[in-house]
């Protein structure tokens, strides 16, 4: 027992004595939450750039009416006509029209300076890539504004949803919590084990009566407690800044948290079971972590993936964990919904842990 406590305590020391690790595991998630949270939540002003091709003999009355009062402004890309449109619910949109010819418009498109080209004439022509949602949005907004400047494209009424639980940060924070658990285990455990093997330290340690299973298990305990610190920081921070609350059963959340740590500790032990080359270890960890980061709906919903993939994605441990945590945070879920995913995550952890232990290369 003393042995395991000692192992845990050196893992803490390793952790707290390396400023780099401290930054990436503790501060980085908080910074990410604040950055993304503010970017997607604040009522910031939108800016749209449009290339405008217009000659005196190709003018369009509606467009001219819309552009009346627009002021020429000096921008980095040249002089443009600036026009701001205020909407009581959607906020302010600033349009910049860059007068140019076809060649100039094409060049601006290629450089990504504009997403849409507007060609004046008896009927207006909008040139853009239909696969680009931003260009489509600009098109729809402009079209509505030019046809009916006063109606401001609001045929129905807009009711902004800024209630706690439905904002982007509410979606993001639980995802970041899940990701934090994965990253902390995969990098904290796998990498440190592979590093110890490459330094021949594992070899030295097992040449003593050290309990091998106890050694591997000590990583679970130390990581779990570090994950708790990390998560409390993130939750505390987002509570104060974004007023995020845990709406569901806290015990269910703790259950999920522990089984998530179990799952990723098991996977981490398994991933670290063979190689003694930190570079290969790096690649292996990324191979596990990256696909889940992209697919498991941490930053954006995975429901945009094709249906066949969605059912696979829902089977990934990170997805189960993120969805579960999200359920507790914003849908008020309890054990009845988190029970099964918790059980599955814990089993994944146990299976991978023992599999990894069985094939573990100590020498």
């Amino acid at each position, binding site marked *: 027992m*003393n*042995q395991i*406590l*000692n*192992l845990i305590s*050196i893992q803490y*020391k*390793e952790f707290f*004595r*390396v400023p780099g690790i401290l930054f990436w595991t503790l501060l980085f998630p908080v910074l990410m939450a604040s950055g993304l949270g503010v970017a997607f939540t604040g009522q910031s002003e939108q800016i749209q750039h449009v290339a405008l091709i217009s000659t005196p003999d190709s003018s369009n009355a509606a467009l001219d009416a819309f552009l009346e009062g627009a002021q020429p402004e000096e921008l980095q890309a040249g002089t443009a006509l600036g026009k701001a449109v205020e909407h009581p619910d959607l906020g302010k949109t600033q349009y910049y029209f860059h007068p140019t010819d076809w060649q100039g418009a094409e060049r601006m498109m290629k450089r990504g300076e504009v997403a849409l080209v507007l060609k004046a004439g008896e009927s207006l022509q909008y040139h853009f890539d239909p696969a680009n949602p931003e260009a489509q949005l600009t098109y729809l907004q402009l079209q509505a504004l030019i046809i009916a400047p006063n109606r401001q494209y609001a045929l129905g009424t807009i009711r902004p949803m800024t209630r706690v639980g439905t904002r982007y940060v509410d979606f993001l924070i639980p995802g970041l919590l899940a990701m934090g658990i994965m990253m902390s285990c995969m990098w904290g455990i796998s990498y440190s084990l592979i590093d*110890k093997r490459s*330094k*021949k*330290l594992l*070899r*030295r*340690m097992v*040449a*003593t*009566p*050290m309990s091998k299973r106890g050694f591997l298990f000590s990583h679970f305990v130390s990581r779990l407690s570090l994950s708790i610190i990390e998560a409390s920081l993130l939750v505390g921070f987002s509570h104060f800044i974004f007023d995020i609350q845990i709406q569901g059963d806290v015990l269910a959340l703790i259950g999920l948290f522990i089984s998530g740590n179990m799952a990723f500790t098991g996977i981490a032990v398994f991933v670290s079971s063979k190689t003694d080359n930190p570079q290969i270890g790096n690649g292996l960890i990324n191979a596990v972590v990256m696909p889940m980061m992209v697919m498991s709906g941490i930053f954006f919903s995975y429901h945009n993936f094709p249906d066949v993939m969605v059912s696979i994605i829902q089977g990934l441990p990170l997805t189960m964990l993120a969805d579960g945590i999200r359920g507790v945070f914003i849908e008020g879920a309890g054990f009845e919904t988190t029970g099964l995913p918790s059980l599955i995550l814990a089993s994944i952890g146990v299976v991978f842990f023992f599999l990894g232990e069985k094939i573990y290369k100590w*020498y």
Partner: protein
Amino acid sequence: MNSTSTPIIEVHQVHKSFKDVHAVQGVDLAIQKGEYVALLGPNGAGKTTLVEMIEGIQQPDAGDIKVKGLNWKQHQDQLHRVIGLSLQETRFIDKLSVRETLHLFSSFYKLPKSRVREVLELVRLKEKAKAFVVNLSGGQRQRLALGISLLNQPEVLLLDEPTTGLDPTARRELWEILAHLKTAYQTTMILTTHYMEEADYLCDRIVILDQGKVLAKGTLQKLLSENNLGEVIDFGLNAPGNHLEIPPLGDHEKILWKEDGMSAHLLVNDIVTYLPELLESVKRQGYHFTSLECRKMTLDDLFISMTGRRLGQ
């Protein structure tokens, strides 16, 4: 059975191969309690492989290994407690202090805290107890590794190149600690090295290993006298010596030319009779010496005479 006649370490016909190397080829060793034995050989001789098999870290393909009559298959736990070891190259955790590192390892043996203090004293690291491993010098690191191997008061100490890469002062310091262990605790030790002066200074017996085989073993005196190659003449010539005719050599005598072709290493039974003939013959053929040195045979010379190569390479 008589306790002095039963070796504490018995290695019998041990073989070990890797993909394309037969690293250890039928080695026999018997080491008595309290004996210090040097395993001497150039890089790649199979020293590490042999020692790691005794440590239970590698398994032999064939042959038997016993320490205190115990084997690794059945008595792993007991052997861990009998043996103390340091590996050729272990890097401990950078940001742990010397004391913390010792504590960690002592917890694996369930030792009391006082043992760490004793060991710090033994390996002369008391002043460095709070220093992080990353900030230690090469000699201090080796002493830490030695300290870890001494925690469990091992009867058998197996050290793999404990002084490689150290400067002479640091090396001496380690030698003194090891010499002290021998008198104070009657520890048995196998030490691998490619420094013959280390083997000479510390060890009762020397085992010379090359390409997985034992070339010779015994005390330094025995090795030198048995090979009956008492003396060495090193000389340099003013011109390439490929046409130089030297006086006829006896059974165990030989000449080894260095790569430059102008200097050589001559192993003879008796300088007193050979040297005048050599001087005479060199002069007659129109050469003259640029250097000339006569001395007793050392282990290094012995190794060269056996393999045609130098030890430290």
